[in-house]
């Protein structure tokens, strides 16, 4: 897995989509410490200050029907990893938001580039890991792993756990490795 790191970027997802169209190798991850215009669904912004975990994974091309499943699997595995880290049962608001104690803690944005029968999925993941404060308008709706557990998360380890898990699962299921 190749990781391209940014200190600050507008959006890992936009960058990954752009690079995927230009033929960037599958299993490349765009990772940023901060996003200035992190995107959520329907163009909504994803609050992305330093401390959180923001990355987008470019998957290998696969059948378009697989791409739908990839999105759902990502949600559940991310929820599982969050549970293992926090010991708090997460709630998956199907299919792409994860809540802890009724507040959003992570989001998944999957975008597919489809040519003919083949689709290439770019999975964008944002996890509020070590965010200490949220703006007033988000305080009641969003939380972080740090706020819920009162302990700091090792972003690097957490990132590796997520990406390694997803790669293993998807390769076994769809990419025959």
């Amino acid at each position, binding site marked *: 897995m190749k990781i391209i790191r940014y200190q600050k970027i507008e959006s890992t997802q936009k960058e990954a989509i752009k690079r995927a169209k230009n033929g960037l190798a599958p299993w490349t991850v765009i990772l940023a410490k901060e996003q200035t215009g992190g995107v959520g669904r329907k163009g909504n912004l994803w609050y992305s200050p330093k401390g959180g975990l923001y990355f987008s994974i470019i998957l290998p091309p696969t059948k378009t029907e697989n791409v*739908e499943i990839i*999105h759902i699997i990502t949600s559940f595995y991310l929820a599982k990893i969050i549970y293992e880290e926090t010991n708090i049962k997460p709630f998956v608001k199907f299919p*792409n938001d994860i809540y802890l104690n009724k507040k959003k803690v992570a989001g998944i*944005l999957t*975008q597919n580039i*489809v040519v*003919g029968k083949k689709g290439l999925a770019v999975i964008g993941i944002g996890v509020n890991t070590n965010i200490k404060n949220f703006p007033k308008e988000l305080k009641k709706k969003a939380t972080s792993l740090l706020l819920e557990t009162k302990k700091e998360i090792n972003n690097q380890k957490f990132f590796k756990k997520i990406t390694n898990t997803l790669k293993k699962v998807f390769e076994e299921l769809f990419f025959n490795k």
Partner: protein
Amino acid sequence: MKFKINFQGKEYEIEILETNEGTKIRVGEKEFLFEREKEETTTSVVLPKSDFSKKKICAPISGMISEIFIKEGDWVKKNQPLLHIYAMKMENEILAEKEGKITKIFVKKGENVKKDDPLVEIQ
């Protein structure tokens, strides 16, 4: 190339030479020139491979047409984005499978489509 032949009891020395004018065959002191036929110059022209067939691009999944980037009559390149289908809270960007002219758009923004419904025709 030189060699000798014996013809009806008489020996002849023969030399064959390849020259610019053609093939010279020297038999003793006599010389025979076999001129080459002038080759006709032909140029083969390879036409670019063009696919003039019509191609219908169909919905890979069921969903809602959230964006259309092209209009009928547009010329699109291969892999150019045509439209977005929003499905399962995922955005699916449909790219052109081939270069050509958009001859028909079967859908409108906001419309729901089923898997395999025709979206766009490219010729």
